[in-house]
């Protein structure tokens, strides 16, 4: 079923909307959540939470494309959950590792002059990603959007793990330099 019809089902308050959403995007939802949580049951619950969220926001929202909208929701739900788990020292090792790596991207205080809002920061990051070669951009997104492990990325892209590690490290360096150049404080 195409996205437009699925959204029509949500507008019609048909429970089939959830079924069709799960049929079409369930695997991706669970996989996205799993990358962060590394637990199948939690991932399943995240997917279900995502469908509930969709049910509550559509209507009035009419997301297009639906796919990215869903992916963002499930990611955020999984992040909320992993944050709780991290506090409980339960799971989330992959997330924690990515979190620590991103600490390298945080601009030094002496180089910043403004605190940005999230949307603006996203814009800056998008611009930065746009300067990267495709493979590097993809590695970055796989690691820090999807929280895939280095071996997973290496396998997916058909490159060595060393290359992934080095590329990510350089990209983090670049991002930090870029944010500092932009004078951004987080």
């Amino acid at each position: 079923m195409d996205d437009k019809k699925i959204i029509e089902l949500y507008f019609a308050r048909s429970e089939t909307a959830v079924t069709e959403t799960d049929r079409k995007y369930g695997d991706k939802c669970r996989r996205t959540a799993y990358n962060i949580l590394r637990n199948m049951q939690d991932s399943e619950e995240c997917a279900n939470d995502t469908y509930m969220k969709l049910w509550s926001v559509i209507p009035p929202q009419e997301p297009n494309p639906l796919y990215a909208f869903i992916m963002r929701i499930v990611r955020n739900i999984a992040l909320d959950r992993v944050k709780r788990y991290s506090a409980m020292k339960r799971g989330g090792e992959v997330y924690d590792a990515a979190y620590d790596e991103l600490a390298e991207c945080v601009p030094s205080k002496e180089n910043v002059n403004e605190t940005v809002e999230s949307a603006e920061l996203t814009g800056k990051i998008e611009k930065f990603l746009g300067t990267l070669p495709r493979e590097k951009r993809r590695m970055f997104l796989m690691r820090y959007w999807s929280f895939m492990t280095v071996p997973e990325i290496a396998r997916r892209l058909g490159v060595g793990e060393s290359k992934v590690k080095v590329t990510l490290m350089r990209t983090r360096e670049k991002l930090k330099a870029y944010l500092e150049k932009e004078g951004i404080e987080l």
Partner: protein
Amino acid sequence: MTAEEKLIRAIGDVKDSYVRLATAYERPSIIKAQGGEFREVTGERLPEPEHPWLRPVLTGGALAAVLALVVALGFMWGLNGKEPDITPYEPPVSVTETTGVTTDTPPVTEPDQFPQELHDYVIRSENFGDSISGEAYLRIVFGDYYDNNGVISVVPETGRVEVVGAKTDKVWSTARFVTRDTPTGEITLDRDIVIKIADYDLPMLGAIICVPIEGEDSYCTTIYQTDDYREYIDYEPNWFYTIKSPDEIRFEEDVFGFVVHGNEHIGMGFRARKYDDNTPYEWLYRGEPYKEGMHLRFDSFISNPDRKLLEHYDPDVEPFAFAPEYVCWEIEEIYYDRTSEGVFAFDNSWIRLKNSDEASAAFSEFRTENDYNRFSADGSFNIISQVLDDGKLLIYAGLPGNGVFTVSVFVYDGETLRQFPDLFLHLTDTLESIECDGVNRLKYYDYLAGDCDIMLDFNTLTYRAWLENENETALALLAEYAGTDDYALPLDPESTNLIYNGEAFVQGNRSYYTGDIYSVTDGTVQTVDWIPGQNMYIDILDGNGNLWTYANCGSIANVYEGMEVKAGDKISSNWAGGVQIRFNSPVEPPELTEPAVDYDMTGVELEGTPFDSGELNELSVDSYIERFIGWETEWSEKSGQENRIVNTGLFIDSLGVPGLKELYYRAFALDYILATDNIPDLDCYKNSGAVVKKPHPLEPDYIRPFASTGISYESFRNAYLESFTEDMALSLLNNFDFFLKYGDEVYIVEVTRGGDLGRVHEEYELVKQTDDEIVFRKTQFRVEVGASDLTYHPELRDTYERTYTTFKFVKEDGAWKVAYAPEYYW
């Protein structure tokens, strides 16, 4: 919220196309079989099978042994939907099928006395279905990791059950083949076959393959059993095969069992590993019959190597999104009523799909809309057609599943219907979203690659796929179109020196499973690279400057960089991808210039005071080499790992060329310096504290700092030219990532190269040695990065991943130089 969390959240909100890029998760490997042959996945070539259709089913030399089993062969139940007639085996002596036919009881072997000789169990299959006559092979393949035993087959000439090399240390209690009709075991393989598991106390895992002699059809089954669970899996012509990767399991491309049906590969077992503890598992898939309304069922069973059932996944989970790719539509018959104007009329037209049941195969309803003609039967799949300018009919047949269409393309000229055999389009939209220019060019949006532009050649049934722009995913897609599902393509111009301008096409030559690939052009092998865990690719530069990339080549034994090949040369000694991707632009070798002399210093900011030229040191790496070799040796002794540098040095020493080992050490040190923060370890290093901030020439927005070294650039450059050929030296010196020349001094960026953490063993092979040229190849045996045991175990040799690298030394002006050495794998 912490700064890191802010970043994570902000990254999460990037634009839609980036979200799609980020979530293009790995697909499960899809292996398609052709002609009933099997693909060997990794490792060395396995022994030739006894019959061409029965390739060994385990890979890497790690094939199957019977753990002990008893199989009772029951048989067909009726056509179309009857449930299989399974009577649990009741040991010990005889079995009565539900039909009431009592079979002879075969001899029962005692535990630990599994016979090596042939059994005299009689199974004849003289009638293999209503459309096929003749005898049939029945072969049952069981496997575990460590040997190639455990094959049982029915010898068609004698009807005897053949047991090949089964393990004797396992209990093989009551091998029994039960047939329904006659006590002699004669079977009539009609449309269905049931493989019964009659063993009751021992686990079993494997695949059963039935292939008729010169037949056009075959029947397969995959079976699984543990102490407390019995399962049989049968395949019929209309059964689907899907796989789904449970997320706890890391999928490995080690196939240990295959099931084929005709030309379709519809079942297989895989090895898998747990993410958390790396425990190996074997994983078996089964298919389910196509049912009305596009219902795909999925089931999988996971066992550990001792075959204990661990998990049984819900059979009703959603089919994997890519499941339709397993469905190869074949149009069996077509009928069109053609008008005198040369335009097809559809009132009395119909299409019958070969792989569908009768009810859904005959298309009697259609509609015409926007030049497209949609055929529909039960709504579960779609066919549309479009009349081309010359009157030919272009047909797209697709099966929607999870929002994805996999579309086959056919052309019908009014007399002959032909399919583009290697072309499968992937759509998330309707089939009408494919735009055809009325001649031969298709445009559509691919769910992986975005905009695609494919030109069809109706004479050869091949195609070219153009890309709007260079796009890694699109290239991967092209490879997929060409018959491989591996993405081992040289996609990064930076790392492969591959130059392409965004226009590429795949030579539609899917010849995988054939065992060999052949060069399609005269040329020189530019790159032979092995991606651990995946496959090898080869680049060949032809005389016209075109670069041909052979992807998914498996393990290739007889190819090396610099090798001259001619069209038709066999360039593989193993199973091969045979995927030829020609980058349709002349390859322009990178222009090698003196980088630092002409280095554009526009935008350079200098902080601190640089050295004067008179204060600079000459580059010296001798002490560094000594220390490095010392470190390597010490590490090797402490860790028990082999020493890669010293090993290579010893091998080079064995070639009997004075000074070559020292040259290797020096070249290694220099190359390593360029990419690491090792320069501060050199005795000649000193730092004035000056920092040069310079935009990277390829990425002007990125300003990177380079630190003073106190080392003369001239000596730096000369050191490279003394150790490497000029081409390689300049290639290394052109790497702006790591250093620059400021004034007369070398400035470096501090980066750390990733360690080589997965290597356990190395072997060397001399490829060529003349008075002025030496080529050797190093094979590294690897385990997963992060594995705790990095020592080499010869008995596990076949399980290691292998990395092949080539080194080339040439003599220039009487002095040996390094002409080629692979980055990262010195």
